[in-house]
């Protein structure tokens, strides 16, 4: 109980902070007035039009990535799995860069192309991992993810080398992750889309516990291992693909957050998934706030921030975990 209060309080504090910091300096009171629709109109349009959808999207994406990271760790039985492990990032990157190089226009072109690239990578990895007798082999899944990712990344390199478009730099920056393009529309689309995979993953929390024991023990304890793995993989990677398409590739949140929760509170997925969601969302909002303000008026890609913080934290967690 104390844990949930702590997580909720942290989330609320982070969201509030995300609304307060920014180029236009607004006090806490002014922000609150703006949220509930009172006071200065400029403040209202900044807070409600720009910052609120942005912090909410960051929260939702951070939470989703943490949940998918925890899920894939259970599926491949490896605590080092992260949401992008399975070739997703390569596919998304290739899609985004290809769209830009081909000069496809429109605000939705890059996200949509990234989504298509990521989904193609998912299908390909899934197809490769279906081995003898149509069984999904978690070890092959892991390897397939790595090679499909590498293959897509080299194709991306080829497209970049051959493309004269100066926008390729923008594609790369976009890939490093940003909530710059957040809008109520993007939030609504992502929110509507994320509900189903998140619900599916939460509903499978128990079988996930069993998978961690190994596939055969899980089976003997009553889990339908094959369909469990498939549903988990598909729900987790589809969710990650959409997260990538609204915000680029933001590494380490999905790796470090589930890990931290595992160390702090254990591995029971019914608790792990929601607490990873809250902590992941919280940290993402903080990282985004840091990305916006550290070098203002320039903005860092939020993926750079999460990696700069995430890597040392991860090293510390792993060393602690190993001892």
């Amino acid at each position, binding site marked *: 109980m104390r844990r949930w209060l702590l997580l909720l309080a942290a989330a609320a504090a982070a969201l509030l902070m995300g609304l307060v910091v920014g180029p236009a300096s607004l006090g806490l009171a002014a922000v609150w007035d703006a949220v509930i629709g009172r006071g200065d109109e400029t403040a209202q349009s900044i807070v409600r039009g720009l910052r609120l959808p942005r912090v909410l999207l960051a929260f939702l994406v951070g939470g989703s990535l943490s949940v998918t990271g925890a899920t894939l*760790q*259970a599926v491949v*039985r*490896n*605590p080092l799995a992260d949401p992008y492990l399975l070739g997703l990032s390569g596919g998304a990157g290739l899609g985004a860069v290809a769209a830009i190089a081909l000069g496809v226009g429109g605000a939705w072109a890059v996200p949509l192309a990234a989504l298509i690239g990521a989904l193609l990578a998912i299908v390909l990895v899934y197809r490769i991992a279906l081995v*003898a*007798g149509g069984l999904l082999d978690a070890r092959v899944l892991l390897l397939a993810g790595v090679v499909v990712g590498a293959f897509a990344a080299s194709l991306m390199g080829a497209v970049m080398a051959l493309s004269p478009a100066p926008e390729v730099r923008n594609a790369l920056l976009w890939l490093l992750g940003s909530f710059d393009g957040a809008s109520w529309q993007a939030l609504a689309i992502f929110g509507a889309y994320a509900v189903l995979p998140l619900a599916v993953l939460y*509903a*499978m929390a*128990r*079988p996930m*516990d*069993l998978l*961690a*024991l*190994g596939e*055969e*023990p899980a*089976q*003997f*304890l*009553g*889990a*339908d*291992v094959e369909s469990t793995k498939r549903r988990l993989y598909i729900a987790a990677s589809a969710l990650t693909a959409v997260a990538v398409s609204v915000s680029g590739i933001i590494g380490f949140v999905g790796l470090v957050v589930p890990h931290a929760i*595992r160390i702090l509170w*254990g*591995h*029971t997925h019914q608790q792990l998934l929601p607490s990873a969601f809250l902590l992941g969302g919280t940290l993402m909002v903080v990282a985004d706030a840091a990305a916006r303000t550290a070098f203002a008026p320039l903005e860092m890609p939020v993926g750079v921030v999460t990696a700069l913080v995430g890597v040392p934290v991860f090293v510390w967690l792993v060393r602690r975990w190993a001892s």
Partner: protein
Amino acid sequence: MGELIFEARAARYRYEGADADAVSGVDMEVAPGELVAIVGPNGSGKTTLARLLLGVIAPSGGAALAAGRPAAEWTRREMARRVGVVAQREEPAFPLRVHQAVLFGRYAHLGPLGAPGPRDIEAVERALQRCDVGHLRGRWVATLSGGEWQRVRIARALAQEPKALVLDEATASLDVRHEMEVFELVAALVQGEGLAAVVVTHHVNLAARFAHRVVVMDGGEARAQGLPRDVLSRAVLEQVFGWPVEVSMWRGAPQFVPLRKGEGGDESSS
């Protein structure tokens, strides 16, 4: 008395791409309150036979039945409510405490979102006590000894409230004391609670002393089966294991000693 727990009728199984049957034409049955040992050398089809009975694989020919119904037709959930399995090795990917591990035995009794109720907690508690691992409940399983971990896994199987236990080489890596403890525990469960048990092992001498009946597997076939003292003869063991042995009776159970080269001169003694 009552229906058979497991039944194999001319059961046959060939792995994909293999050029011989792993199990070929085996008949066997397991009744409630009976401890049946499946013995035999490596690769003789012991584990494949157990997997057929558990419905993990479906026979290529013949039948493998659980409670009279083809074992492979049972859902995993239905099977887990009837049969608890302890295999040789199991390494959890994430740290786990003993009471959590045993609670996993209740999985097949819970709804997808249902929290464990008093009945589940009670079943876990009973299983912990029965296997004498109650004092370990708060420990991380990674810190248990091999014997403790096996007892915890038997407790988990009991938490399933099964009608049968299947142990597949569950004592293979244990020292004498821990191995005996596991066998004693299983024998007590069979005797005291009327469970059926199938114990796959290559420890013929222990099978001879604990099992009501023994199935001797060799090259996929059941070379012999029946009461230990009828089945575990020198002729059968030498043929199956391909090594000279001597068999003597010890308190009614045949016990064998593999002979060293040069010790096998006593053709006359049998």
